[in-house]
């Protein structure tokens, strides 16, 4: 299990390779990378606030849940905080399992829970000032499928 909550940028490709190299007996590796998206061309930056201490504990608990539910060879979660420009990578999840279905499902489970159960808050800075990103109804309801 690899968990990092960090301010610094990360190299998703290098992380994926290191993760895959450390895995034994897995036939499937799934990765997800989240990127700051400038939806309507007005975003100058995003700021991610988090709750040090609780963030690591909450993500750790989500990973443990995934490991209980699926037979995973390994799990990786990297999540950044601080100021991020459009195009920057916000976070990354990787899962390794014997078969593809478990690797995919576990990665989606982790993403769904990280979205609304890990203590991060996004603020967007645009031409007309700053706004806190509102939690989406669909992100909350995504949890009901697990």
């Amino acid at each position, binding site marked *: 299990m690899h968990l990092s909550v960090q301010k610094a940028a990360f190299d998703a490709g290098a992380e994926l390779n290191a993760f895959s190299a450390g895995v034994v007996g897995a036939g499937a590796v799934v990765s997800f990378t*989240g990127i700051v998206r400038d939806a309507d061309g007005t975003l100058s930056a995003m700021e991610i*606030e*988090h*709750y040090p*201490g*609780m963030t690591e*504990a*909450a993500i750790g608990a989500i990973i443990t849940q995934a490991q209980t539910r699926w037979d995973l060879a390994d799990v990786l979660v990297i*999540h950044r905080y601080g100021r991020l420009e459009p195009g920057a990578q*916000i*976070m990354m999840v990787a899962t390794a399992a014997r078969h593809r279905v478990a690797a995919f499902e576990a990665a989606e489970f982790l*993403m769904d829970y*990280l*979205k*609304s*159960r*890990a*203590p*991060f*808050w*996004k*603020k967007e800075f645009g031409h007309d000032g700053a706004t*806190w*990103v*509102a*939690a989406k109804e669909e992100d*909350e309801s995504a949890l009901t499928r697990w």
Partner: protein
Amino acid sequence: MDVLYFAWVRERIGLPREQIDTTAATVMALIEELKAREERYALAFCDLKSLRVALDQKLSSFDAPLAGVREVAFFPPMTGG
């Protein structure tokens, strides 16, 4: 007791954390106490549906008891990922 505020809760109250001496038995009682204090608290806690609370860094509910709790955190629904 340490009380922490994040995101717009922090901005409305104007500080990230403070020490509060309270005899409030539950989270809800603490909220009422804070709302009665000053306008900025009333504003931060006006809509409980858009608020979440963590007790000692675990998500909890407004009717949870505060006995033995050292750290209370208030924040909006999380937007990670």
